[in-house]
């Protein structure tokens, strides 16, 4: 059953954090301190929060920079991740040429989450069944993106349905893709357009002919190949 340890008249964790951070107005601060004087629970909670701050805060926090890749990933809610953008623009491909780009200034990037954690993907990346791919897009202007793939068996899939993406670097797309058991080279194709585009006809053409149909005006494609092994 859902319950609270303190009443609504007490100071929330937010209010206590604001008090400690010096963010309260004079009257808010006076009110908070008066409450602390007369309450049994809130001073205890404030002490607990202060203790946590002493244990994990300030210089005890992990360094903000110098971290090579996130170990976990999930969709960011409107928060672009700069490290993905920096690496996807400047990383040296380990095994293969950079993603092919027919025109435009967008750039596709991706992360691979596997048994050993999450790493930044590169063209020619070795992946395994059960790994998860999360894609990023860098675009100079608002754009629409759909991500397709054609695997080693010739099967084409929509890895990410068409979505509108704001201008920015390394914007995470919200849906991750779980890789299946089909081994071999797999081509991931990002179709990037000025306007919304239907992904299914593109997928069908990729399945039938192994390539995209001629794209509408305002669209271009970027391709990256991954190698799925056991």
């Amino acid at each position, binding site marked *: *059953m*859902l*319950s*609270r*340890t*303190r009443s*609504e*008249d*007490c100071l*929330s*964790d*937010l*209010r206590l*954090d*604001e008090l400690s*951070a010096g*963010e309260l107005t004079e009257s808010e601060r006076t009110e908070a301190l008066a409450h602390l004087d007369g309450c049994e629970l809130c001073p205890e909670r404030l002490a607990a*929060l202060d203790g*946590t*701050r002493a244990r*994990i*805060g*300030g*210089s005890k*926090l*992990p360094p*903000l920079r110098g*971290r090579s890749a*996130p*170990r*976990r*990933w*999930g*969709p*960011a*809610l*409107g*928060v*672009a*991740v*700069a*490290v993905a*953008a920096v690496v996807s623009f400047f990383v040296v491909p380990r095994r293969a040429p950079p993603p092919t780009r027919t025109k435009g200034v967008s750039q596709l990037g991706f992360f691979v*989450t596997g*048994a050993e*954690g999450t790493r930044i993907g590169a063209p020619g990346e070795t992946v395994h069944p059960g790994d*998860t791919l999360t894609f990023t897009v860098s675009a100079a202007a608002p754009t629409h993106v759909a991500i397709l793939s054609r695997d080693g068996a010739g099967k084409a899939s929509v890895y990410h349905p068409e979505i509108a993406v704001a201008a*920015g*670097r*390394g914007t995470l797309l*919200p849906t*991750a893709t*779980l890789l299946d058991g089909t081994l071999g080279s797999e081509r991931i194709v990002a179709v990037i357009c000025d306007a919304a585009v239907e992904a299914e006809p593109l997928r069908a053409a990729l399945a039938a002919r192994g390539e995209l149909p001629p794209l509408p005006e305002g669209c271009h494609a970027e391709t990256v190949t991954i190698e799925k092994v056991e």
Partner: protein
Amino acid sequence: MIGERDIDRLYRELGHVVLRRARELLRSDTEARDALHEIFVGLLARPEQLDGVVKRTGWLYRVTTNHCLNQIRNRDGRERLLRSVPRDEETSPRGENLATVRGLLARLPSPLAEVAVYYYVDEMSQEEIAGMLGCSRRHVGDLLVRLAKWSKSDAVAYAK
């Protein structure tokens, strides 16, 4: 204009708030550290997100909550990657509350999940939650009623 130094200072001063809450919601120190990193690297990339934000603690509360809820919702099929924080925290009343709320979060629709976190984890008042969500206190009250009904029906469905 907010610059990199401001974000660095914010990280040192309030990073612990993000890390503490992410650990409570995600029950994984690794995922919590990733959340902390992603949120602040995102701020370094787009510091303009803080333009006009007077109370940055509240802003960080909201961003952390949304980030963690997304992580929780995406956990299906990735549970092998989770590493737990010590379980002794669940023996306290607060720990038990946290465990109850966490058990619901993956299934709760938005905005009930956010209200559950703010009301039962952060123990905010309805007035504070209204400020966080940008709605009326009355609407928060309605959401809490919906949350209570939902958790009751979910408990029955889950038990079956």
